[in-house]
């Protein structure tokens, strides 16, 4: 059977760019339509809070593929266009320009949006979120040495922004509502390490502070906290997490629960509809549960899996998640998911900014946070996939090389 309706990809992030490429690599020769809200072709988000914010990476190098790649591979792109509704019965999408498009198969890669901070003054000039190129261009315009920056949220995005701004000579304060930095993602020891490093670099860290207001005239002048603390601010960057863009699927009756539910092949319950990337809630066999991941690796791998599935090929996605963060001279590499750990083992010297924190549950390695420690990271990726049981004393013993630790398990 031949059909003239395209394979439509909604959302133009990392997963979308990869999926369009992978569909062609899988041998699909029919029409592809990629619809994105932003004015840009798919680009990499991780550098936005790192090298791009620091001005070390040009816009062209952010692109997943050069913009002319799409036309030359017969992939139509419709940018600055939002999908308003999905009609599964008619296999049709309604777009923000009031047109409709029909699809043969649909891939939803709508990603996430920033979690909003519902306080007075959030709309003042100089208050920014960080999600898009335009956000970062706006932040950069206020990045003058000596300026007072308040970062709201002590997660990875906030700490990366703090590191870049501090190096640029701004006066930086990080305000975190929880009692420690990175509370959602790392253990107490690792939180303490990041607080110490940022403090040593000159950043002021305020944990346990709930922002209640941005004050000023038309432009921000101060950040006020619920406990009465007031911090001078010429600008603020809010990074308090992201939420999945699942409404298009949800409103069309597809099952969602903190993400669009898909199987290991990125299929939804509708045989014509697939989803990939940050917006999905999907099974992870290594951890034996459903997860929603905010990661490039997941976006790329699910995109490849979804493209294969759209072409009738089963390439189940089943990998150990991994992440990274760059702050100052710290290269943080994370493998696995630490939720549910009952033991944290530190290997190496935190004072020397070179260590790994291993998270174990009943002796099984779940995850690692490796700071300037490549062997620990690389070995752990494999051990986590193998669901390895490792004695804590061997992990902690730096006199035994990591390769040896893994070898001795066999």
């Amino acid at each position, binding site marked *: 059977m031949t059909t003239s309706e395209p394979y439509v990809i909604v959302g133009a992030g990392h997963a979308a760019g990869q999926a369009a490429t992978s569909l062609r690599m899988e041998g699909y020769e029919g029409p592809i339509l990629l619809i994105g809200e932003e004015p840009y072709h798919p680009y990499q988000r*991780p*550098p936005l809070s790192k090298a791009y914010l620091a001005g070390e990476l040009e816009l062209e*190098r952010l692109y997943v*593929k050069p913009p002319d790649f799409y036309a030359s591979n017969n992939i139509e792109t419709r940018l600055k266009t939002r999908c308003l509704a999905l009609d599964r019965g008619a296999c049709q999408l309604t777009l923000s320009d009031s047109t409709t498009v029909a699809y043969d198969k649909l891939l939803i890669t709508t990603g996430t949006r920033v979690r909003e901070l519902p306080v007075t003054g959030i709309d003042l000039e100089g208050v920014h979120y960080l999600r898009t190129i335009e956000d970062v261009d706006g932040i950069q315009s206020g990045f003058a040495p000596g300026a007072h920056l308040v970062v709201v949220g002590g997660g990875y995005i906030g700490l990366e922004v703090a590191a870049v701004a501090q190096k640029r000579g701004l006066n930086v304060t990080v305000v975190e509502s929880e009692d420690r930095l990175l509370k959602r993602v790392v253990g107490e020891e690792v939180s303490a390490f990041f607080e110490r490093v940022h403090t040593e670099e000159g950043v002021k860290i305020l944990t346990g502070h709930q922002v209640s207001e941005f004050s000023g005239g038309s432009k921000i002048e101060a950040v006020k906290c619920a406990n009465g603390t007031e911090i001078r601010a010429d600008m603020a960057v809010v990074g308090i997490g992201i939420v999945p863009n699942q409404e298009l699927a949800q409103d069309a009756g597809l099952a969602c629960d903190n993400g669009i539910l898909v199987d290991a092949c990125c299929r939804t319950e509708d045989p014509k509809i697939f989803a990939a990337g940050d917006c999905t809630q999907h099974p992870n066999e290594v951890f034996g549960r459903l997860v929603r991941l905010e990661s490039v690796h997941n976006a790329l791998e699910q995109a490849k899996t979804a493209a294969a599935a759209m072409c009738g090929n089963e390439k189940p996605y089943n990998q150990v998640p*991994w992440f*990274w963060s760059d702050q100052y001279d710290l*290269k943080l590499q994370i493998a696995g998911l630490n939720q549910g750990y009952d033991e944290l083992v530190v290997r190496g010297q935190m004072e020397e900014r070179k260590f790994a924190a291993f998270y174990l549950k009943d002796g099984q390695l779940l995850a690692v946070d490796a700071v300037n420690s*490549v*062997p620990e990271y690389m070995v752990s990726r494999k051990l986590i996939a193998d669901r390895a049981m490792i004695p804590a004393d061997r992990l902690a013993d730096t006199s035994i090389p990591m390769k040896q630790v893994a070898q001795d398990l066999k």
Partner: protein
Amino acid sequence: MPKVTYIEFDGTEHQVDVASGLSVMEGAVKNMVPGIDADCGGACACATCHVYVDPEWKDKTGEPNEMETSMLDFAEEVKDNSRLSCQIKMSDDLDGLTVRLPESQH
């Protein structure tokens, strides 16, 4: 513009133009050369852009730094001429560079 030849594990050759300043990894990814995954986009965080530099180009492409060496130590099928292609920056001096791809990046 300098050219790079990528040779897949099965012998398929891809000759592409890669602008000076871009990495050898970027040249592959942007031109749909299969076999270089580069999941991290060039942050030297994933070791999925492993290549073998043709021996005659080994000196011109320089030596890997400590981070890269450490990452390569854990890649599969590592040889003397193994490099992470995200860490090789293109220049006119490298016009004609040939790199070979491993069977797998994982």
